[in-house]
């Protein structure tokens, strides 16, 4: 079903809206939640919470890009849940993702300024714009969707170790960009 039609169902307060949303985007949303929270019930709840939030938000909200907006909601909610419960979540994929992203940051002792989120997002967008479409997609599949390297490699028909090297270069490139941008000292 078209996004416009699904959105129309929400506006009509027709509960099929949620069913149609799940049918079209459920797999994506569950995988985003799972990549952050792991396989447990929490991921399941995270997606269900998100549906409720969508139901309560539309109307009045009318997202322009429904899929990306949904993805953001579920991602934000998953991060919140992870933060609230991180002690039990040592082995999930997010821990690994964060370790990788740590390479994009300088060591704590050299961080002397606060970084604004808005500034950081702008810098990220500027950097993403410099990448080839393929690199951008790889980076976001890993760090936005949180997909395990193996899965991305399989999808793209690439050897996992080659992909790991590619990711390493991308992280280094991001770090350099953030430093140049003045986001990092």
């Amino acid at each position: 079903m078209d996004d416009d039609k699904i959105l129309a169902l929400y506006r009509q307060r027709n509960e099929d809206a949620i069913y149609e949303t799940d049918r079209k985007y459920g797999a994506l949303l569950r995988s985003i939640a799972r990549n952050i929270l792991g396989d447990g019930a929490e991921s399941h709840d995270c997606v269900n919470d998100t549906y409720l939030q969508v139901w309560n938000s539309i109307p009045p909200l009318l997202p322009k890009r429904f899929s990306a907006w949904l993805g953001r909601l579920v991602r934000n909610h998953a991060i919140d849940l992870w933060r609230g419960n991180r002690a039990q979540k040592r082995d999930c994929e997010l821990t690994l993702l964060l370790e990788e992203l740590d390479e994009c940051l300088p060591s704590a002792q050299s961080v002397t300024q606060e970084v604004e989120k808005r500034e950081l997002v702008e810098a990220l967008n500027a950097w993403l714009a410099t990448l080839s479409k393929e690199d951008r997609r790889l980076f976001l599949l890993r760090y936005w969707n949180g997909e395990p390297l193996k899965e991305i490699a399989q999808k793209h028909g690439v050897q996992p170790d080659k992909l790991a090297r590619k990711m390493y270069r991308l992280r280094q490139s991001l770090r350099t960009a953030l430093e140049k941008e003045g986001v990092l000292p």
Partner: protein
Amino acid sequence: MKPEDLFDAITEVKEEYIDEAQQMPEKRSPWKKWGVLAACLCAVLGVGFLLFPSQGPEEPAPTEQQMLATGSNTAPTEPSEEPTAQPELPTEPPVAVSIDGELPKLEVSNYFGAMGYEGYSVYDLEEKDSGNPWTEEMQLETMPVYQNLAYTDRAGTPDYLTAHQMSALAQQAGRRIIELQDSGKYDGISEDYRSYYGVITEDFAIQGQTTGAIRLNLYKEKSVKEPDSLEEAQTLAAQLTEEYGIFFTDETLLPQAWGSYDIYGEGHWQIGAYPASDDPLQSILNYNFRSLHFYIIEGSLSAVVFSNRFLSMQKLGDYPVITADEARKLLLNGNFITSVPKEELRADTVREEDIAAVELVYRTGNVEQIFMPYYRFSIRLRDREDERSELGLKNYGAFYVPAVESEYLTEMPVWDGTFN
């Protein structure tokens, strides 16, 4: 900033990019060959970029009273349209009141952050030299030690100056710039993600930061050629200091440039400046705690940050310090802290012949509870197994020996081959 913050920010990237990532790719056969071995990759993770001890901030700082005085009629929510006279700013941080007159013992922090080690690849150590005014000939007998009032636990965000103080700081700086330029418009204060913009015009915004730094964001295109060499970086540092230094201080500023090379052998140069002083000790303090840093992005100057740790630190006292020679002996004895892993050394331990340079620095990161002087030794490390060694780049690591006499330390560090 923590990796979580970065992960969090990634959520908000452009929706078109998010959508683009969700499209199924065409499967292709493996990409072109990569020349680097995975093992080698692991070895270089995190190295390539150097951590200079964050050279601290900048300029004389207003005391809280002074800032409150300036800002008294300009509460963050109701900015004054009438600039008031700029107050005199102190150039010395406040002194802590000691109860018994004795110098408290100092704890050496060996926390270096989670990422990589402090190493640098250069052709010549001079490239990494950022104009430190300290020399061995100075023969300093004591040096001041400070408490970091904006101390934050590991990787957290510092939080010291209040919103009111930050906005007062931003306003002072903003008025100065408007007066100097004889243009611009005072647009009041806006709060955004715990930052305080004192003055915003079409051309720039001034932001007061919680550690006492002032950040000037330039919105008007200011083209600069990104330096390709140390010489170019030095020239650019002189030009930009000449042009922008006056916005932050009346003092004479000494331009600095420094850099290193990444794993692909490409040089990265940084430029800044710090206030000159006839007093050698004051010069050292300025260099470490009050400095200007220029941020250049894609051929354009995007921001100038004048750090001023004097606003967020308090003097504990003047501590007797050892000489560089004495520090060298401690170094060879294993009494140092470092983030360099043992396997990067050219031998089992630090050898006399691996010592390439020494300088005196304060470690001034947010995670330091105490700002105390250290002798930082540049130790020659093993050559990298990547393009850098082919290019003739030499690899060095930073090793720190506390400069304060050992009787004033709670414990003399002993290296056990690990860090953190």
